[in-house]
């Protein structure tokens, strides 16, 4: 069963379908939120809020984009809300960023992690959605709510920056 069919069942109130959809997306949304927020507790909140919104809003999905685009769009909205709350002092994250474990990670991997972490959030999103989720620019543009050209520009600058950092 594809994501669209599963979401249609969720829209009819099928709890088992919702659990299946959760299993398909929870880890991916968590990693996306973690990439953006660099905080596990906030990322878990984003997964919760996103999946509750998916349950409530499944009936409003029109099918004009991929299901994953729709879900990552919700997750992005929730992640930026968490960032705004944090900026207003409503939430105090318990950890600042995902620190690599030098015992478990090779030096190169640590450098890649750090290079990604140093990108502006919008560029980090593009890199995650393109390289990990394999979303084309048009779908990333829908997630970010910007023109496709902006996504291309963000990818260009992200790739340039990553290449510079990793070459140095």
């Amino acid at each position: 069963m594809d994501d669209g069919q599963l979401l249609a069942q969720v829209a009819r109130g099928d709890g088992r379908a919702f659990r299946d959809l959760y299993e398909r997306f929870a880890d991916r949304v968590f990693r996306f939120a973690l990439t953006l927020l660099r905080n596990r507790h906030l990322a878990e909140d984003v997964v919760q809020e996103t999946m509750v919104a998916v349950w409530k809003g499944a009936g409003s999905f029109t099918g004009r984009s991929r299901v994953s685009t729709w879900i990552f769009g919700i997750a992005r909205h929730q992640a930026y809300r968490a960032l705004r709350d944090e900026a207003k002092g409503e939430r105090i994250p318990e950890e600042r960023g995902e620190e690599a474990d030098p015992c478990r990670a090779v030096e190169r991997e640590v450098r890649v992690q750090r290079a990604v972490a140093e990108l502006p959030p919008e560029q980090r999103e593009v890199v995650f959605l393109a390289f990990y989720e394999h979303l084309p620019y048009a779908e990333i543009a829908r997630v970010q709510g910007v023109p496709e050209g902006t996504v291309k520009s963000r990818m260009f600058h992200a790739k340039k920056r990553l290449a510079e950092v990793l070459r140095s």
Partner: protein
Amino acid sequence: MTCDQARGLIPLYAARALSESDGAGLIEHVSRCTVCQTELVEAMQLGHELRATFGRLPGAPEGTWLSVAARTVGMPLLQVDLGSEMAGLSLNVGATRTGTPITGSLSILGREVPVLRI
């Protein structure tokens, strides 16, 4: 295809998000352009490393589903499944913050149809 056009497509190719026809056009271009060829190789290497890095991030914590379930379908209190592979009836009772939703579904030859939602 020009070098500018190729440079726009290289990150997508490295991300495996390029259509087959665009991918074929890009490969045709890089086969006779060493500058774009070098850029493609670097992008492929970067893509490989990024996928590995993102893939090693942890998944959602175990208890997250229970928190989501309590706000949506309900924490499972009771689940009854009757029937065989041909046809069956499933009844679920859950607990949410606002009540105890009861859902039932009928399955016939593997197709499940919701029949009850209270």
